[in-house]
């Protein structure tokens, strides 16, 4: 094992995959000269040239559309969205083209590409640079959506996403880029579609992903001290969702809490709640609890952002309330 940052981990994934497969290339705004705003592409052009690490015009629609076209013509592109918030600019390309081409054309060719989307709350960036938009993408059949919570998964999932023949949206939380963590020395990929039981417990199942997963771990530590044993699940992939792991855990603990940074309304937590309500309501000893952001845009001022933000305390309080 070695200890590297999340951003370094995604860079290693790119380096290894670009070296392994010459069809892999990446394009986006300010990624070649600048190395990406989070340093996640630093050194990549020196290694592979600006023919494979391309600075694009500020044309999100053309970036995603061109990657789709290149994928159909035999390449394996990675498109960088700069900020996940900008994906709205090219949403048509994402949900009408990229997601549908394989199904709608009867399986003639999949769109083998990755869309990298840095998301989440960071540095009081406010309403248009801090969103967690993942639920939109989970509502679209044909896309796979992955969302790592630590450097090891960031690397493994990015490699898996690049190798996957299907279009994959890869969310990377901006506040995680500097996070350090242990990453295996040897080659590995993290399977898409499999959640991970991060910690076993017997009183309550706590499901989370991305940045919030790290807060859930802290919440679980607090609860543990109070004698509440928490089973922690890191979803890692949010579409398709790993129902089996969730249902198995709920069967064991009889309680379910879900925590994410995105607004609660219409969020991934709602989907998981519905799955468990539909398929395992008999197992439950308490109503399901969801922790998510209030239904407002992300505010700017510190106290407001603080109030908006999910914290370990908020998660722990929600879980306490269901015991």
């Amino acid at each position, binding site marked *: 094992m070695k200890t590297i940052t999340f951003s370094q981990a995604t860079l290693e994934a790119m380096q290894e995959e670009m070296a392994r497969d010459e069809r892999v*290339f990446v394009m986006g705004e300010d990624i070649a000269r600048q190395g990406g705003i989070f340093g996640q592409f630093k050194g990549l052009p020196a290694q592979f040239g600006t*023919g*494979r690490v391309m600075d*694009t*015009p500020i*044309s999100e*629609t*053309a970036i*995603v*559309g*061109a*990657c*789709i*076209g*290149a*994928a*159909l*013509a*035999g*390449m394996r*592109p990675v498109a960088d969205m700069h900020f996940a918030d900008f994906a709205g600019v090219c949403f*048509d*390309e994402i949900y*009408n*083209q990229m997601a549908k*081409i*394989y*199904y*709608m*054309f*009867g*399986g*003639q*060719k*999949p769109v083998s590409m990755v869309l990298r989307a840095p998301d989440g709350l960071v540095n009081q960036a406010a309403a248009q640079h801090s969103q967690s938009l993942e639920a939109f993408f989970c509502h679209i*059949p*044909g896309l*796979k959506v992955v969302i790592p919570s630590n450097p090891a998964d960031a690397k493994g999932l990015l490699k898996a996403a690049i190798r996957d*023949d*299907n279009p994959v949206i890869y969310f990377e939380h901006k506040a995680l880029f500097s996070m350090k963590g242990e990453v295996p020395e040897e080659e590995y990929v993290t399977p898409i579609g499999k959640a991970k039981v991060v910690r076993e417990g017997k009183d309550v199942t706590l499901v989370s992903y991305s940045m919030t997963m790290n807060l859930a771990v802290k919440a679980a530590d607090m609860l543990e001290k109070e004698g509440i044993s928490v089973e922690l699940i890191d979803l890692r992939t949010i579409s398709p969702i790993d129902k089996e792991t969730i249902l198995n855990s709920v069967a064991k603990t009889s309680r379910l809490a879900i925590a994410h940074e995105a607004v609660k309304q219409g969020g991934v937590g709602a989907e998981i709640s519905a799955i468990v309500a539909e398929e395992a309501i008999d197992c439950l000893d308490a109503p399901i609890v969801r922790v998510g952001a209030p239904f407002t845009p992300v505010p700017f001022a510190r106290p407001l952002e603080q109030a908006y933000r999910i914290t370990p305390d908020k998660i722990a309080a929600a879980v306490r309330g269901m015991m």
Partner: protein
Amino acid sequence: MCAMPVRKEATLPLARYDKETLKFFYETMVKIRNFELTVEKFFFDGEIPGFVHLYIGEEATATGVMANLRKTDYIQSTHRGHGHTIAKGADLKHMMAELFGKSTGSCKGKGGSMHIADFSVGMLGANGIVGGGFTMATGAALAQKMQKTDGVAVAFFGDGASNRGTFHEAANMAAAWKLPVIFLCENNQWASTTPYRTTTSVDDIADRAQGYGMPGVIVDGNDVFAVYEAAKELIERARRGEGPAILECKTYRIKGHFVGDPEMYRTKEEVQKVLEETDPIPRFEARVLKAKAMTKKELETIRTRVEKELAEALEFARTSPEPEVSALYEGLYV
């Protein structure tokens, strides 16, 4: 208000064209025309469901362009995509079956008319989203460049679609990176019920090429020879690595926007006049007969062959099975 500007015929002597090319021109145009007439009939008979947009009157464009393309070149089509698909060399049987929603269709009955595609001949898809193809064609061209082939991609689009932002983003990117993509405008004068001049800021779409630093060329889109020559020049230029271009083909949409369109927005006389003066198929016939480049008999033979192929395609489509309901969940992921 919206009559097609009459343009001079291509004046190059027909002796320049070998018999194969002339035959390709005629056979492709007749194939598209008859395919579309058949589709119209079976739509009205209730056997073809969904939205159907016909290409009648615009056959010379697809034909003239595609005569310059290889199977390995790519095209992105529009919602009016049957003609492009046929001209790129797709199998009529599977196309027709797709329109009927059959399991033997080129998209296994998952696409229908608006989403017809045949990747085996480089036809990367019709599109229900107007202007959806510009950026994807640009990407297909980028791939060709990265793979160091001398292949090209052609993005077909209508005058209406030229007002989408996708056009401008793709044109800039393609020009900035000198990608081998041709933006092929079929200006049929109409965007659904709206005459083109009322919504578009320039007289000619090709003028917009200037803003992106690429050539913009205008031709009579109902003259297959003119389209062929202009497309040839721009495509060869793109193959040499000299970058993208816009080719605007002035043509006219003879039928309604979609099959069943009551066409309240124009007069029958306007359409009749265009048909009489500029219909690309009689024009081609008159020209080759006059120049003695082809005989009546040769034209007749081609028409008979097309009729036979079409009858077979129809029979295949009508007798093919519908997809099993289990196919609903098939093909979401690889």
